[in-house]
């Protein structure tokens, strides 16, 4: 069912106005939660932004990014994958490409290269990627305010107009660093990969919490009410406890009495995003059920709209394809995990309100 055909033509560029329904519908609410201050194109010229995060390292963020991009391209979309794991990048290895000569650092730091030139073709038709790398060059920048990332953001949102990119997929790094959360909170659909083990689940919840925090902070910045955002964050931190009834969702409802307008805006901008959960390396049914349990908890506790997108079974094919230095879904297109990935991709498209093009 999953054919990687090298003779397949490049997917047709999207006709004008055929953007994601989800992006279109929530455009105005979505943009008030952004961290980046840059003029935005019209709603129908925006690419759908997907970000893959997860807090803990080694949960399969890059694997999911690379292969999800390939699967989305199979469905007829042009996908641009950006390696935002600035400290430890290896997206290119998942694509089976050696460390490229040009990387994001050339575009952002030394500014010697145009964005067009750091976009590299992936071995799958319809997918292009921007490699990270040059970790030593980033060392001084990571602690700075994230202004140095603004050109990347501008290039990203202009990519639909310039290169007819339908979906921008961000491969975020581990941890909840400021720039990671900047990009995650900017995503229309934020994917969180989880392993069915307590450490990973704990980190995923931290990641959800930081997303909520980031949105409050961004909104405070946008509305020119940073002190209100500070108050709300302080109140949330003191109120929230280890019970469902004292979760962030119910705390926010109580805070609505004190800050009606701000919380209303916050709810709107939260609803303009969707979070997806992908459980990786499942071995039995209880691992698979974990996703729907987490979906329920996230909605109750954090009040974030969360969808369980699918699970990826534990598969030796992952390691084999990495050792073969080939992309998983093109090396083992008939493996169970490739099918699972296409299910997750189809679910993502459904949330974004995008039809399969072929």
């Amino acid at each position, binding site marked *: 069912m999953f054919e990687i055909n090298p003779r397949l033509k490049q997917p047709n560029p999207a006709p004008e106005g055929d953007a994601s329904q989800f992006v279109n519908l929530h455009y105005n609410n979505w943009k008030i939660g952004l961290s980046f201050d840059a003029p935005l194109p019209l709603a129908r010229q925006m690419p759908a932004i997907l970000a893959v995060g997860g807090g803990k390292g080694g949960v399969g963020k890059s694997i999911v990014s690379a292969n999800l991009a390939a699967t989305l391209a199979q469905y007829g979309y042009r996908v641009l994958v950006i390696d935002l794991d600035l400290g430890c990048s290896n997206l290119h290895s998942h694509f089976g490409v050696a460390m490229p000569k040009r990387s994001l650092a050339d575009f952002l730091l030394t500014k010697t290269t145009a964005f067009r030139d750091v976009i590299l073709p992936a071995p799958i038709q319809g997918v292009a990627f921007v490699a990270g790398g040059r970790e030593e060059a980033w060392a001084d920048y990571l602690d700075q305010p994230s202004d140095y990332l603004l050109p990347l953001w501008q290039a990203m949102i202009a990519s639909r107009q310039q290169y007819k990119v339908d979906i921008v997929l961000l491969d975020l790094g581990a941890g909840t660093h400021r720039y990671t959360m900047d990009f995650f909170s900017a995503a229309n659909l934020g994917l969180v990969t989880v392993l069915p083990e307590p450490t990973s*689940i704990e980190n995923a919840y931290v990641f959800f919490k930081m997303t909520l925090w980031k949105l409050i902070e961004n909104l405070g910045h946008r509305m020119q009410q940073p002190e209100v955002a500070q108050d709300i964050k302080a109140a949330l931190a003191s109120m929230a406890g280890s019970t469902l009834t004292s979760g962030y969702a119910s705390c926010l409802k109580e805070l609505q009495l*004190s800050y009606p307008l701000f919380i209303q805006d916050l709810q709107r901008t939260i609803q303009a995003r969707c979070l997806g959960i992908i459980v990786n390396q499942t071995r039995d049914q209880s691992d698979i059920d974990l996703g729907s349990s987490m979906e329920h908890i996230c909605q109750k506790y954090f009040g974030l709209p969360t969808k369980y997108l699918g699970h990826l079974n534990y598969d030796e094919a992952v390691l084999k394809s990495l050792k073969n230095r080939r992309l998983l879904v093109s090396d083992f297109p008939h493996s169970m995990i490739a099918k699972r990935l296409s299910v997750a991709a189809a679910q993502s498209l459904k949330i974004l309100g995008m039809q399969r093009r072929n």
Partner: protein
Amino acid sequence: MNEQLGSDFKPSKLPGNARSGPTYYEILDVSTYSTRLQIREAYIRLRSTYSTGSHALYSLVSEEEARDALDKIEEAYRVLDDESQRKEYDIAIGIIKEPAPRPQGAEFFGGSVDPMRSPRRGGGMSSPSVHEAFTGDVGANSEVWPEDSHEGTRSPSRRTVTFGKIKKAASRSSDPEVLAAMQAIISKPESFDGKGLTQLREIVGIPQSEIQERTKISIEYIKGMENNDFQKLPSLVYIRGFLKIYLQYLGLADAVTLIEAYTEKYNHWRETTRPHSY
């Protein structure tokens, strides 16, 4: 402004009710129109979420809270899973304005589900003699039933008797006369097919609808099996299962030879009609 925002959703939802907190539907995360099956699925999902040893709560929700939530879920499910309790609850929280007239059938079956409570002829059933009353009933029936089959009519009262019992097999199957007649058919398994099935059923004296009612085999399949309409039937494994419970209900608990004979007929049909399918 503040007051409006704080209280804009509650009063409309709960008119004139002193209840606070989420409704049972909210606890189970289902809509008020959900079917029983959907409620059950939601319940199972939530139970696994909050059960001890669930990793989904790790670092977020304490164990006591999980236990509380689980108690609430159990309570909500207990009410919503019971149709009559659910209806009462719906009225109490104001989803349904007034009780709809209860369908006749529901009451009829509702009464008949519990054999301990259903009124019996000749009354005097006390709890220690349940078993006695049960077996005694079969005897009583075997006296009553021959009259009915002689008359050839089905009176409503007889239906009541039939449905008043919860048993695996039709009650008449233990009648020695019937057993002898059935034995005649069972002894010739090689010629057993749908016709034999019909004969067995007629000997016991029950309609197809009763088989359908008690075994939950669809009436189409019962007719198909009895008329040897193999193309209307599902695959063999289902047919064998249907035959087994069909015959069980007729009182033939281990009629392996009959099932094998029927399987042979089925295979013969298959080979003759679709020779190239294998």
